[in-house]
C-alpha cells in the first residue's frame, strides 16, 4: 500500500530522452559557450566565427565532401571506442591501431600494382583490419590474462606504434633516393575511387573532394556494429561482460575471451581509418597521417552514447568542426586550426567527464513536473476528492 506505483507524492519518472538527448545537448552547449569565451579572449566575435565555421563546413558541395571525409575517420574510431566501451574497456589505442591499419592497407596497395581496384580495396580492408586488430591484440591479451590495465598499455602502444612506423618509413619502406619519409605513390589503378569519380559512373557530377568510397564502408560498419551487438549471441555475451563481469562468469560467459574479441573488433575498426586515409586520399604511406583521430573517437563514442546512430551524428559534428575550423585561419589571421582542438577538448570534458554536471538539476525538474502531473491525474481519478 505504501509503495503503490505512481500514487500521490511519488516522484515522477524521468523520460528517456532526457538522458540520451537533452543532457548531451546541454553539455554540448556548455562546451560551445566556453569555446566562445576562448574566441572572445583572442579578440574575435564568437558568433561570426561560428557562422563562418558552419558555412565553410556545410555551405557548399565541396565543403560537404571534405566534412564527410573527416566524418568517415571519426565514424571508424568512434565505433572502435564504442565496442570496447560495451565490453567495459577503454581503448585509448585507436591512434596506434589506425596507424598500423594504414600500414596494412599500404602494403597491400604497394604489392598489388596492376590489380583491379575492387580486389585491392577488399584485400586492403582485410589487411587494415588484421593489422589494427593485431596491434590491439597484445594489450587485450595482457588485460585478459595478466590483468595489465588496458588504458596504460594502449597508451604505451600508441608510442611504440609511432616509433615503429617512423623507423619503417625512414629506414625500410622509404622510396629509394627520396629524402622525405614516405613510401612511393601507389599505382593510380589501385586507388580507392573518390566519391566524385564513383558517382560519375552513374552520370552524377559532384565537385572533387577527398571523400571516397570508404564512407559507404563506414556506414556499413555502423549497421554491422548494431547487428553484431544487438542481434547475435556474441554481441550479447560481450555486453554482458561489460555490464557485470561476475554475472557473466555465472552465466558461463568467459570475460577474458570477450575482452579479446571486443579489442580485436575495436582494433580492426580503428584500422579502417587507414583505408580512408592511405588508400583513398594520400595514396602512399606517410608519417602521422592519423593526426589524433583515435582520440577524437573517444569524444565521438561518448557523445554518441555508444550507439551507431549517435556515433554517426557525433562524427558529423566533429567532421564539421575539423573542416570548418581548418578553414577559419584563412579568414582570421589570429585563429589557427588548433582552435578545433580547444573545442574538441571542451566537448570531451563536458560531454564525457562532466556528463553528470546538469543531471541532478534537470532530473529534479522533471521529477517535480512528473509529480505535479501525477497529482493532477490522481485528483482527476478520485474526482477531486483525494
Amino acid at each position, binding site marked *: 500500500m505504501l509503495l503503490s506505483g505512481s500514487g500521490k507524492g511519488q516522484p515522477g519518472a524521468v523520460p528517456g530522452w532526457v538522458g540520451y538527448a537533452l543532457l548531451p545537448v546541454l553539455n554540448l552547449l556548455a562546451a560551445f559557450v566556453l569555446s566562445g569565451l*576562448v574566441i572572445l*579572449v*583572442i*579578440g574575435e566575435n564568437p558568433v561570426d566565427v561560428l557562422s563562418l565555421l558552419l558555412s565553410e563546413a556545410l555551405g557548399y558541395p565541396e565543403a560537404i565532401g571534405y566534412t564527410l571525409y573527416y566524418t568517415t575517420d571519426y565514424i571508424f574510431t568512434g565505433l572502435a571506442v564504442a565496442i570496447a566501451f560495451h565490453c567495459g574497456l*577503454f581503448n*585509448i589505442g585507436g591512434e596506434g591501431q589506425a596507424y598500423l591499419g594504414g600500414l596494412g592497407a599500404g602494403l597491400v596497395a604497394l604489392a598489388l600494382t596492376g590489380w583491379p581496384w575492387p580486389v585491392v580495396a577488399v584485400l586492403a580492408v582485410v589487411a587494415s583490419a588484421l593489422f589494427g586488430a593485431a596491434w590491439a591484440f*597484445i594489450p587485450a591479451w*595482457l588485460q585478459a590474462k*595478466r*590483468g*595489465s*590495465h588496458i*588504458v*596504460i*598499455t594502449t*597508451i*604505451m*602502444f600508441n*608510442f*611504440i606504434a609511432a*616509433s*615503429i612506423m*617512423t*623507423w619503417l618509413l*625512414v*629506414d625500410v619502406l622509404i622510396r629509394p633516393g627520396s629524402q622525405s619519409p614516405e613510401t612511393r605513390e601507389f599505382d593510380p589503378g589501385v586507388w580507392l575511387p573518390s566519391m566524385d569519380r564513383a558517382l560519375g559512373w552513374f552520370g552524377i557530377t559532384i565537385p572533387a573532394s577527398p571523400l571516397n568510397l570508404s564512407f559507404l564502408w563506414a556506414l556499413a560498419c555502423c549497421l554491422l556494429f548494431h547487428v553484431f551487438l544487438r542481434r547475435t549471441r556474441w554481441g550479447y555475451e560481450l555486453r554482458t561482460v561489460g555490464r557485470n563481469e561476475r554475472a557473466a562468469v555465472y552465466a558461463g560467459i568467459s570475460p577474458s575471451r570477450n575482452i579479446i574479441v571486443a579489442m580485436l573488433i575495436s582494433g580492426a575498426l580503428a584500422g579502417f581509418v587507414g583505408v580512408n586515409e592511405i588508400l583513398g586520399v594520400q595514396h602512399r604511406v606517410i608519417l602521422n597521417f592519423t593526426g*589524433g583521430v583515435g*582520440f577524437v573517437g*573517444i569524444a565521438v563514442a*561518448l557523445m554518441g552514447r555508444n550507439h551507431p546512430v549517435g556515433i554517426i551524428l557525433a562524427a558529423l559534428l566533429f567532421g564539421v568542426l575539423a573542416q570548418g575550423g581548418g578553414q577559419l585561419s584563412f579568414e582570421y589571421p*589570429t*585563429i*589557427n586550426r*588548433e*582552435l*578545433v*582542438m*580547444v*573545442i*574538441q*577538448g*571542451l566537448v*570531451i*570534458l563536458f560531454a*564525457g*567527464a*562532466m*556528463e*553528470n*554536471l546538469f543531471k541532478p538539476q534537470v532530473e529534479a525538474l522533471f521529477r517535480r513536473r512528473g509529480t505535479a502531473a501525477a497529482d493532477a491525474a490522481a485528483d482527476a481519478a478520485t474526482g477531486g476528492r483525494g
Partner: protein
Amino acid sequence: MEDALLLALQLLGATIRVATPLVLAAFAGMYCERAGVVDIGLEGKMLAGAFFSAAVASATLNPWLGLLAGIAAGVALALVHGFACITHNGNQVVSGMAINILVAGLAPTLAYAWFQQGGQTPLLPNQARIPAVELPGVEALSGVPVLGPVYRELLNGNNVLIWVTLVLVIATHWVLYRTRFGLRLRAVGENPAAVDTAGLSVAKLRYQALLVTGVLTGMAGSYLSTGHGAGFVRDMTAGKGYLALAALIFGKWRPGPTLFACLLFAFTDAVQVRLQGVVLPGIGVIPVQFIQMLPYVLTVLLLAGFVGKAIAPKASGIPYVKER
C-alpha cells in the same frame, strides 16, 4: 681516461637535465594516484605550465612571476580534473584526456593570437629565464683529479629547479611515509571507505593531493620553457607527461623506484642522442626509434608481470560514492 670520465659526466649531466621535468611530473602523478585519482592529464598540465610561464616571463621579464603563472595554470587544470572526477564522479581517464587535448589546442591558439609568431612565445632573454646555480670554488677544485671534473661538470651550473626537484623528491618520500597527511593520502587511495569511516573527508584529501599535482606539473612545464629552454614552442612537452606516467608505473608508485625509472628513461634519451649513426661493433647501427620506444616497452613488460609486478593503489580510478 680523462676523456672517458668527461664523456660519462656529460652523459650524466644530460640525464639529469632530461630527467628533471620527468621527475616533477611523475611525482605529481604519484600524489594524486596514491590518493586514488588517476591522472593521464599530466601532459596537458605540463604544457599549460610551459606556455603560461613563458608567456608571463616574456611579458614581465621576471622568471619567478613566470614560474608562479605556470604553477597557477597547473593548479587550475588540476582543480578542473578534481571538479569532474571528485565532485561529479566523472570518468578520470576521459577527464585527463580532455585536458590534454584542450591544452594541446589552447596553448598554441593563445600563443598565436597573443604573440603572432606561429604558435610560440618570443625567445626569452637571459634575465627572463630561471637561472642556473653557479657554485663557488670551481676554479680552486679544477686541479683535483676526478673530484674537480665531477664538481665542474655535474654539480655546477645546474638550474635552480633541478635543486628544487632534488629537495622535493626527498620531501615527497618523507611526506608520504613519515607524516599524518601522507598516511591518510595512501589510505584514501587504498580504502577510501575506511578513511571516510574514520571521519575524514575523502573529497578534501583527494583535492589536496591534486593541488600538489598541479603545483608540480606547473613547475615541470616552467622548467621546460623558462629553465631548460628559452621560450614556449608548439608541442613542447612531446609526450613527456605520458613518459612520466610510464615512469610512475615502472617505479610502482613509490618515490625511490620512480626516481630511478625517470633517471633510466632520461639516460636512454641521452644515450640515444649520442648513438645516432654510430656503428656498434657486432651489432651495427641501432635505429634511434628502437631506443626511443624502450621506456614504453619496458613499462608494458612490467605491467604484464614479466619484470616484477606493478600493483596500483587499490582504489585508484574509482570515484568514491558515500554509502547511504
